[in-house]
Structure formats: structure tokens, C-alpha cells
């Protein structure tokens, strides 16, 4: 008896690609983001990221507000690290209007920015583990420290998430007396907690199997796609605006720019943890130097209806998620003529299609989590 083997052309064994939408409402899309994935079984043939579900038109809204009124909008960009956005906007306006910031305020800003960076990286790594499939445990361990940071911010301005604490020319209030001792205590305790996370994750066999070699981004690919921040440095490119285009008082501190070699998801996780340690280093130096400063103002006097001279300015700085830029055009009136935001998250997310093709669904989520995005910043 002869067996009739039916090939693909007979139509019996023909397989079809399988289209599936991850999001806009999905447990691991960090807000509202849609990934339209085309699958062959478990393997991803192609994905199409769809942005824009959280678009609020912040750039357009800014054109109808005074310079001071725009500040709360910047909180809502990347609400996980809102003060970093405040800071870059404030720097842009200061450069546009030629406002000098008191030295004291610069130190205060650096302290806050580094605290913000730690808070952001804790959240990034924590949610990445969630996407890998941990049942919240590492995330909640990291939330314990983030909670302490939020309490610190609460101490400053009464807000935990959208602080609106920075002002053009300085800060809205001075540090309360109990703030610095609390920060010092945090800086002292944090390395121990970082050790705790490492015990849970660093050499965990399952984490290694799930993360090492997954979603490799070579350095040239990262540069060609304008990737910045920890994601770029994890690919081995030593580029950090704090050193390369130094701003504020970052040139007065001693710290390293950690880099990793291969640029896989594991390297991105380790990169964030190492940046936390470097931030702690900056923090301890900043507090030490800040305490030696003579008493002075924490903010320059700036008119509320600020009218910067005609002109345009682009200012960028190293936000936790990457290089954040503000492009402001002034026509001499009380509101900017144009405000454009270069958000790191959006450009980092554009590589996801490149990274994910050929991997499995589980890896898609892991790679996606390792990018560390916040949709508020991407859709603006």
C-alpha cells in the first residue's frame, strides 16, 4: 500500500500566521500601548508597535500656557520620574531667558534627580521581573524602597508622584530640616537592599536562562536608532550626558559611567542596578558638599509672566530613561511659540520590532519590559 503524503500545497497541512493584539489594555503593556504581533505558533514573525493611545497633546497645550504653567505638564510626561522632566524644562527656560540658578539650588536639584533615578530604575527592574513572570515578589521588594523615596518627596512638596517641585530659576521651597537626615539614612541603607535584590535575581538560574542572550542589541543598532540611557550603555556605548555634555554641578562629583558588553535583556537589568549604585555615590558626595555651602537662596527671583527674548533653544539632559530634550521657541510673548519634547522612551521603543522578530512570546514581553518605558512620555 502506498501512503499518500500530503504536502503544503494540498492545503491540508498549510499553516497560517496568527495575528494577535497585545494591548492596548494588557497586563504588561505599562499603560495603553498596542503590539500587533504576527505569530507562527509561539515564534514572532513580526510585530507592529502602535503608539498614541495616551496622547494628550502636551506639546500643543504648552503653546497656550505661560512658562510657569507648563511646569505641571512636564510632571505628566514620565510620571515615574517626574522631577527629571521638571528639571530639563526648567533648564531650557533658564537658558532661553538667561536666568542664573543659585548654587544651592543646583545641589538640591542634583540630589533630587539622583533620588528620582533610583526610584525609576527600581520600578523598571521590578516590572521587568513581573513581565518575566515573577508573581510580584521582586517588584514588591523594590516597591519597599521606592515607597521610602516617595515619602521623601512627600516631605518636600506634599506630592508622591507628580511633584511640580522645581521652578524656573530654582525650586519652589527649601528642603525641610528633616529631609537631609532621611536621605542620608536612605543612602546608607540602600546598598544592603541592592544586595538583597541581587540575591534574588542576579545568579538565579531561571533569570539567566530567560534573560541572557535574549533581545541582543548591538552598539551600531543602538546608535542608528537614537537609543539612549541605560539601554544604550548596556550595549557598550559609554555615553551619558551627565559627563559628555555636563550640566548643573555634575562636573564636581566623582562617578563612573557603567557599561555592559552584550546588550541583552540581562545586561539592561544589570545596567540599571549598577546605575543605582553610581547614583548613591553621587548622592553621598552631593549631600556632603551641599552641607558645606553657605546659606543662600534656593530660587532666583523670576517674574511670573516671564517674557524670554526672541529665539530658540534646545536643552537635553540625562533623564533616568535616557536623553530627554526640550526644544523651545520664544516669540517674546508670555507663552512659547513652540515646545517640542524629545522623549527617550519613544526612541528606545522604536527598536523593539528589530529586537523581537524571531523570538518567542515570552521573550517579547521580557524584551519589552527591559526597555523600561512610560507611555505618558511616549504619547505625550
Amino acid at each position, binding site marked *: 500500500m502506498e501512503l499518500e503524503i500530503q504536502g503544503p500545497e494540498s492545503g491540508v497541512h498549510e499553516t497560517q500566521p496568527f495575528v494577535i493584539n497585545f494591548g492596548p489594555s494588557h497586563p504588561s503593556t505599562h499603560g495603553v500601548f498596542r503590539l500587533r504581533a504576527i505569530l507562527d505558533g509561539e515564534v514572532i*514573525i513580526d510585530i507592529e508597535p502602535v503608539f498614541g493611545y495616551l496622547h494628550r497633546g502636551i506639546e500643543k497645550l504648552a503653546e497656550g500656557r505661560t512658562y510657569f504653567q507648563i511646569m505641571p505638564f512636564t510632571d505628566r510626561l514620565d510620571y515615574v520620574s517626574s522631577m527629571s522632566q521638571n528639571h530639563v524644562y526648567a533648564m531650557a527656560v533658564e537658558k532661553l531667558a538667561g536666568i542664573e540658578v543659585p548654587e544651592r539650588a543646583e545641589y538640591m536639584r542634583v540630589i533630587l534627580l539622583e533620588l528620582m533615578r533610583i526610584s525609576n530604575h527600581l520600578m523598571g527592574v521590578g516590572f521587568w521581573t513581573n513581565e518575566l*513572570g515573577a508573581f510580584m515578589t521582586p517588584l514588591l521588594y523594590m516597591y519597599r524602597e521606592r515607597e521610602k523615596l516617595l515619602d521623601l518627596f512627600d516631605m518636600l512638596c506634599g506630592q508622591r508622584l507628580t511633584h511640580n517641585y522645581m521652578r524656573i530659576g530654582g525650586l519652589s521651597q527649601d528642603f525641610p530640616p528633616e529631609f537631609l537626615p532621611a536621605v542620608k539614612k536612605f543612602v546608607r541603607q540602600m546598598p544592603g537592599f541592592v544586595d538583597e535584590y541581587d540575591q534574588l535575581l542576579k545568579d538565579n538560574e*531561571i533569570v539567566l536562562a530567560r534573560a541572557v542572550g535574549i533581545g541582543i542589541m548591538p552598539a551600531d543598532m543602538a546608535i542608528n536608532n537614537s537609543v539612549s540611557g541605560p539601554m544604550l550603555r548596556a550595549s557598550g556605548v559609554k555615553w551619558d550626558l551627565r559627563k559628555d555634555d555636563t550640566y548643573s554641578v555634575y562636573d564636581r562629583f566623582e562617578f563612573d559611567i557603567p557599561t555592559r558588553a552584550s546588550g541583552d535583556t540581562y545586561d539592561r537589568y544589570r545596567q540599571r542596578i549598577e546605575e543605582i549604585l553610581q547614583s548613591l555615590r553621587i548622592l553621598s558626595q552631593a549631600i556632603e558638599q551641599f552641607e558645606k555651602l553657605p546659606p543662600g537662596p534656593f530660587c532666583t527671583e523670576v517674574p511670573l509672566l516671564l517674557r524670554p527674548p526672541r529665539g530658540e533653544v534646545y536643552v537635553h539632559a540625562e533623564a533616568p530613561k535616557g536623553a530627554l530634550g526640550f526644544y523651545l521657541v520664544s516669540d517674546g510673548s508670555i507663552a512659547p511659540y513652540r515646545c517640542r519634547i524629545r522623549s527617550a522612551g519613544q526612541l528606545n521603543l522604536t527598536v523593539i520590532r528589530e529586537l523581537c*522578530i524571531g523570538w518567542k512570546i*515570552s521573550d517579547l514581553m521580557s524584551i519589552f519590559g527591559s526597555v523600561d518605558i512610560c507611555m505618558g512620555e511616549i504619547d505625550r
Partner: protein
Amino acid sequence: MGAWNYFVDMFARIRLDWIEFLQDHGLASSLIVFLDSLIGITFLLIFVFTTVIFMIWLERRFVGWLQLRFGPNRCGPFGLLQTVADAIKLMFKEFIMPAKVDKIVHWIAPVVLVFAAIMVFAVIPIGEARLGDRSMGALADLNVGILFIVAIGSLGVFSIFMGGWSSDNKFALLGSMRAIAQLVSYEVPMILAIMGVVLVAGSMQLSNIVDAQYYPFILVQPLGFLIYLLGAIAELNRAPLDQVEAESELTTGYFTEYSGMKFGAFFLGEYINALAVSAIVATLFLSGWKGPGLPFWFWFILKVFIVFIFTMWARFTLIRVRIDQIMAFAWKFLVPLALINIFVTAGEVLIWDKWMSGWEFFPWPFIFLNWAVAALLILAWSRLFFKLGGGRVDVPTVRAGYREGYGAYPPASVS
């Protein structure tokens, strides 16, 4: 001592007395079996449901403790009534049936899961009293009890596939596809691991297996115990082997489209399954209801909960394993080890029967040998396993293949 003995396996003895009483009054034996089963099933259901309610509470409190938070603590003392409140809420919720589901299959799926999970308890003995060949502690002490457990245990897969297929949802379909692949694969090492116990005990009847354990079989079957436990975690779809549900990828996998009490039934079935598997592990490897000093039910429940707490601990500490790694782990790691375990055990049983029959001594040499073999095998095989790629498929080549066809933007169109 008589009264104490009576207490020691109270339920079993009451059941025995009751049957003798009916026999004395001349009832037909078929009627006796029917009445006996009816009462037994009632008690079984009460036991299973109350324990499961407690288990869900325990898991939530335990994970709260593990994750630096409180867990349920508002309903009743220590939040004990939280599960009851949740169940009441689920019962009153609307059951949303999507338009294009296969209605009959969609209805049956959760029922099958609960049904299959409860069936397992019929053969698990809790108590000493016997009527002839059968233990009175089990509802139906079959002489092929192990076979029954394996058969009924794999019924759960049907339920998952029915739920996933009938939902007409892509997440559910992917989840149930993974379920079939994963659960069918893990049946193999699980059955092979049980075979070691069957060889040592010399019987497939669970009451005989418990009787044979004057020391817990975990001592002579460490490898079997580990393999069975890992297989059980996969069978229960609990993390780290919960690819079937995979919250961060497939929302909730096969029961994405279920709501109301039908979701509740899946949830309940999952925990009843967990209880059943813990009971099986306790019976096969931890000497079941036996234990010194304290009553039998205490030992049984203690052992069940020790196993259950171990699975919880793994669930909330470890990270999910990818599907191909799970499959590779089953076929390249657990199955070979289980096979070697069977050969070693069979050799030992042969030696024991041939040259040592009648010797009255505790089998220390075998225990030492088996633990050494287990440790060595796991170490050596894991080296080999990693050398073979550690469960990773050759992703770069797969990736290259896909990239060739689908490199361009806009993305490949799909009809």
C-alpha cells in the same frame, strides 16, 4: 488502648461499623454500596471544599507575608472569611458569554475540571481500618489506584483545552495549546516517578502503598519524589511552570473569557487539583496518614499542607520558564532521570527480594545509595543539560530565517 485506637482512625471505623450494621440487617449489598458511597461522597465534598477555602486563604496570607504586605485581613478573624466573601461575590456576578463561543463546551469545561480534581480523592486512604482487602479510609480503595489517579489526573487537560478552544479567543487558544504540550509531556516523567514507588511497595493499591511505608518512601525514592513534585507543579499550572496561564503574556490564558462563577469553578478546580496533588505526594512519598503519637487526620493534613506550602514558596519566588525550556526540561532532564531511577530501584528490589528476604533491618544502605545516586545524577545531568543548550532552541538561526522574509517595513500583511 482500645478507645485510643478507635479514635485513631475514627472515620474509617465508623464507616466499617455502619456497613456491618447494614449487613446484619440483611440489606442487599448493592444498596449498601450505594448508601456507603452517598455518605462518603458527602463527607468528601465537605472536606475538599472547606480545605480548599482554607488553602486559598492560606496562600494569600502566605504570599502577603512573603511580599511584605498583609494579605486579606478584614473579613472575619484573620480574614478567614475572605474566600467565602469572594465566592459569594462570584456567584452573584453576571456570567458573560461572548457571542461566538461554543456554548455547550464552554459550559462543560469548568465542570470537568472540578469533577476530575475531586475524583482523585476517592482512592486516597485516610485511616487504618480495613474490610478484607480494602481500606475503609478511602471511598473506593481500588487495586489499581495509581492507574486511576493517572487517568483522572490527565482529564484536567481536556477541561483546559475545552475552555481554551470554545472561548474563541486567541489568548485562550494559545494558552490551551501550551497546556496540551506541557501537561502531556509532564505526564511521562510523573508516571515514571510513580513507578519507582510501585516497585518498592509492590502494589498499585494506595492503601497497600501506605502500609508498605514503615519509613516514608522519600528516603528510598528521593529522585522520584523530586521528579514527581516538579511534574506536579507543571500539572497544576503553577509558577514557575505556569506558561498555560502566563499572566504577563496571555492575560490569564485559557480562562480569559470566563467570568462569574465559571471563572470561580476554574479557580476552585485549580486549588482542588493542588490539594489532590499534595495529597498524592503525601500518600506516595511521605507515608500518608501514618505518624507517631498524634491522630491520623492531623498527620495527613500536616503532610498535605507541607507539600502545598512548598509549591506556594516556589510559585512566589521563581520566575516563569519559557515554554521551550519547560518542554526541554521535561524531555531532556526529567524523563532520563526517571528512567534511570526506575532501573536503580528495580535492581534494588531484585537484590532485596533475592538475597535479603527475611532480613529484619532498616534499609540504610539503599537510602544512602539512592540519595547519592540522586545527587550525582542531578549534578552530572544538569552539566550535560547545559552543555546541550540548557533548554534553549537555536534562536539565532530561527531568527535569521524569519528576518529574511520579514525584514521590510510595513510589516508583513496577513490575510
